[in-house]
Structure formats: C-alpha cells, structure tokens
C-alpha cells in the first residue's frame, strides 16, 4: 500500500530515512513508470525564443596532462643536475618551492607517483581497468631515473617531500636502529595499499590517496582529522627530517630498491686524511653511514655537499678520487 503523502519539507534525517525505507519499499512493489509529459518546445513558446544549450564543461585537456609529465621529467633532470653537478643547496631549495607551487598547490597534489602505485597495480590485475598513459608515465619515470641516478624525484620534485623539506628547521638525528626499524613501516604501508587496491572494483579502496596527510593543505580544504594529521606531520617534520618520506612513503620503498642499482648518485669519497664527518652530521635523513652515502636512503637534499669543507674546486675532481660507495 503506497503512502499517499504530501511532500513534507521539515523532516529530521532519521524520520526521513525511515520514511524513505517505507516509501521505497512500497514504490518497489508498484514500479513507477515515467508518465507522459511534454515540455514546451521553442515553436510552442514562440517570440524568437531559442532553447539554451546545456553546458558540458570539459575535463583538463590532454595537452596539459602531458605538460604535467614533461614538467615532472624536467624537474627531475634539474634536481639531479643541481645535486650531483652543481651541488647547490640554495638552488635545490628554490626547485623545491617551485615544485610545491606547481605539483602541490596548482595541481593540488594529484596525479602523484606515490598514488600511481595503486593504479598500476590495479591495471596489471584487472582487465577492465583503464589506466591513462600519463599515470603510467608518472609511475615509471621516477623509477627509471632512480635506476640511473637515485632518488632525484625525492629531492625537490615531490610536493609532499618539498613541503616537509621547507619546514625542517632544526634537524635531529634519529638513532640508526630506530631509523631503520621505522623504515620498514613503509613496506607495511605498501602492502596494505596494494591489498586494498587489488580488491574487486566495488570494494576497492585507494588508501594512499585517502590518507595523504598533505593533500588537504594543497586543496585548502579537508576534514578536520586529516588537517590535524597533516599538521602533526609538519610539526614533527620541523625536527625529524621528512618523517612521511622516510617511514611511510610506499613509493620511497620502490625508489630505494631501484637506487641500489644506480651507477651515479650522491657520493661521499672517504679520505683518511679528512674524516671530518661534517657531512654525516649534516645529513638529516641518516643516509651517510661510516662516511659513505647510503644511496637508497638519500633524499637528494644536498646538505652533505653544503656542509663539506672540501666542496668547491676539489669537488669537481671527484671522478679521480677513490669511489667506494
């Protein structure tokens, strides 16, 4: 029996839900077909009236999407050049600000290579899933770069990294073992992200996107709990260098694997006569052990070069010196 109810407009949500349930149930038993109707047309209205066209705004043009990938590639090239060749901390900071502005506040943090792990994983397993080419490029380019020169993406290109870099005012050294232990968390996160991303389409959940602590700053809006989380990360990031990058970033885990094979990269040449260790103290990310760069943890910040008293003329003669890293 359908409820012949007048449309009421002051219902509380709970009552509305109950009403909806009963009405929906009754509506299902009597399928409601669209009755005959005919809206007045131009001819009938007359007076020179023309029906306005319904607007259909287009999404971001594919050229702009390709531009994003090009900017990503260029920024990584500049980053590796600035760190490996120029070794200029100031310039790298400028690049970080630029990347934060472009990939962070302009593109609002999306598409990012960190999240693209999920897209690629789904695309490899679900035949019905369509992955745009720019997402594929966003995933693979930093990895290819890492196989050659290490984590150029992390240094000055990744917007999440850049925002943490810029708040790092008083870096404290995290004890080695704790640092390494916490670093395993990123593989746990990677596993979880893959587990939820590889579920069937209806249950699929993109954790990396949902729990990105900094994206709400980029969007300038967000639920309070995520803004709080982001603020907590930034607060911690003032003293502990780049906590998300070192302990949680799943893409950082992939980059670390690729960096193991890199032929070039940040190099600390040990010199028995000059074991000053200033670089080890300067590195906030624990990427220098026993005077040697642990490339897979190096986040391309160039603080070691900035702290090195040798930097300058002799630095360019690096190739001639012993290379033990």
């Amino acid at each position: 029996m359908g409820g012949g109810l007048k449309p009421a407009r002051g219902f509380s949500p709970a009552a509305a839900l109950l009403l909806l349930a009963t009405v929906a149930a009754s509506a299902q038993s009597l399928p409601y077909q669209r009755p005959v109707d005919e809206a007045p047309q131009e001819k009938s209205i007359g007076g020179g009236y023309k029906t306005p066209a319904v607007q259909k705004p287009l999404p971001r043009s594919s050229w702009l999407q390709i531009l994003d990938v090009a900017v990503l590639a260029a920024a990584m090239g500049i980053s590796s050049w600035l760190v490996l060749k120029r070794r200029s901390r100031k310039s790298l900071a400028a690049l970080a600000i630029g990347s934060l502005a472009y990939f962070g506040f302009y593109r609002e943090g999306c598409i990012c290579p960190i999240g693209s792990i999920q897209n690629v994983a789904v695309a490899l397993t679900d035949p019905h899933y369509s992955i745009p080419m720019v997402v594929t490029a966003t995933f693979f380019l930093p990895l290819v770069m890492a196989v050659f020169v290490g984590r150029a993406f992390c240094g000055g290109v990744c917007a999440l990294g850049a925002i943490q870099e810029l708040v790092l005012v008083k870096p404290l050294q995290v004890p080695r073992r704790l640092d390494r232990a916490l670093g395993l968390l990123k593989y746990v996160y990677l596993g979880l992200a893959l587990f939820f991303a590889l579920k069937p389409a209806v249950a699929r959940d993109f954790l990396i996107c949902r729990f990105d602590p900094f994206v709400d700053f980029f969007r300038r809006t967000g639920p309070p709990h995520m803004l709080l989380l982001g603020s907590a990360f930034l607060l911690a990031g003032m003293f502990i260098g780049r906590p998300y990058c070192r302990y949680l970033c799943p893409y950082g885990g992939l980059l670390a694997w690729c960096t193991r094979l890199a032929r070039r990269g940040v190099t600390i040449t040990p010199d028995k006569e000059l074991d000053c260790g200033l670089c080890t103290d300067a590195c906030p990310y624990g990427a220098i052990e026993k005077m040697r760069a642990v490339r897979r943890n190096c986040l391309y910040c160039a603080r070691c070069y900035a702290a090195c008293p040798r930097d300058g003329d002799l630095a360019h003669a690096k190739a001639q010196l012993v290379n033990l890293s």
Partner: protein
Amino acid sequence: MHYRQVAVIGGKGAGPGQFSASLRSIAVDPAGNLYAANDSQITVFDEAGRPRRRWSTSQPVHSVAVAGDGAVYTGQIRQIEIFDRAGKLVRTWRDDTLAGRVTAIGFVDGDVLAGDATGRAIRRFDSNGRFRNNIGTDNPLNGLLIPNGVLDFGVDAHGIIHAANPGKHRVERYTPAGELLGHIGRFHGTDPAGFGGCCNPTNVAVRDRIYVTEKAGPRAKVYNFSGELEAVIAAGVFNANCKNMSVAVDRRGRVYVGDTVKLAIFVFEPVAI
C-alpha cells in the same frame, strides 16, 4: 459536503477487470457504465463495478468519452477513433489541427471537442469531423499552459467549457466559440482551497459542480461554480507518485478517480453531513 470511498475498481494485473499498463482516462455514460482506457484497450464496467466488455484500439488511448448516442470516442495521437457501444470501430478522424495527444474529449451542441495537449488548445469539430474553431488560443501565448502533458476539460449543462489551465493554477471558462468568460482557482502552497505545485489542477470534470484532481500531494477536490471549495474528496488514498489522474462524475454525484500508479479507479460517494 463530505465524501466517502465506496469502491475500488480494477487494479494492476492481467485479469478481465484489471489494468496491465496504464490508466490514462475514465468516463461515465448516462447509464452509469464506467469506461476505462488501459493503454490500447477500453474496458467497460457496469454500475456495480463488474467488467462487461473489453476491446482493443489500434493505438494507445489518451482519452475516452461517451457521446449522447452511446458512441465511444477515444482520443489518440493525432486521431480520434469512434466505436459503437459494442466495441466495433465505426470511424477514425484524423485532422491536421490535431498536433499530438488528444487527452480529453467533450461534447457540446452536437459538436465534438478534442483537447490537444501538444498544441495546448481545445479543437472543436462538428459531428462529421470537420474542424470549426480553436478554444483557448485567443491569448498572447496561443494556448493554455500545459507543462504536465495533459489538457483536460469538462462541459457543463449550459454548454460552457471548463478547461483546466494547470500552468496558471486555474480552471477557465470558455464559450464553444472560444471566448474566455472567467476562471476560478488560484495558486497557494498550503491552503487546500488553492492549487499547489507547479501545474495543478491536472484534470477536471463538470456536472453541477467542478471536480478537479491534482498531483504532488495527489488529491481530488470539488468546487462550486463561484470558485469556492466545497470539499476535499480524498487526499491520502492515492499513490504519492500519481500524476494526471482522470476524474469522472455520474448523474448521482459519485466521483470516479483513476489512480495512475496503482491502476485502480476509486469511487467516492457524497454523504450529507
């Protein structure tokens, strides 16, 4: 005045007295038989509500009316099919002036009136089917305001046509020549005497009073010729999604309303208080 429900005729189904697809129009003849249009089918019920006859039409029917001689006129798209009381097709009228759906048929002075919902006007034909004049087009909009897709009217004993103009929330009075005499009704969102929503009243029937049905808050009401609300016949019994409910009145003042979702005809009887 007060009305009570006395019967429910029809219902959704495939049986002899049930409707399977739609219930677009109902009509009552002087003998009290009830005619109901179910898509391409006309079903005839007697006064007691028992199904008597049923026949098919060639096209979906949008309106049904019974002339004084017992002929059954069915309004379809751009044509009117006329059957005798046994259900045999006698004539088909096609006319260029019929722009689309004929959603109401009435009779005045031997002429046949067809409500053209697409053309937003009432067309008047003589008994042979020749077009005579339009009713309702003598205004800057060249017609009535019919956003809901159904143009309905009734003819009273004096030959005055009472047409529902839902876009203006009125029932307008016209002479058969097309002259506007006046109107009753006004818009009001909460007052039961007013017509609510965007387009109400949707359907109208006239005998000694004006009977209207509305949608979106479906209800049936009766007004006198001065425009005063006499009674709300029924409000809560119809399915909330009803639209364009057909209404008919017999000589005893019983009101028949066709619920377009439940596909049933509700019968109400006036009860003196």
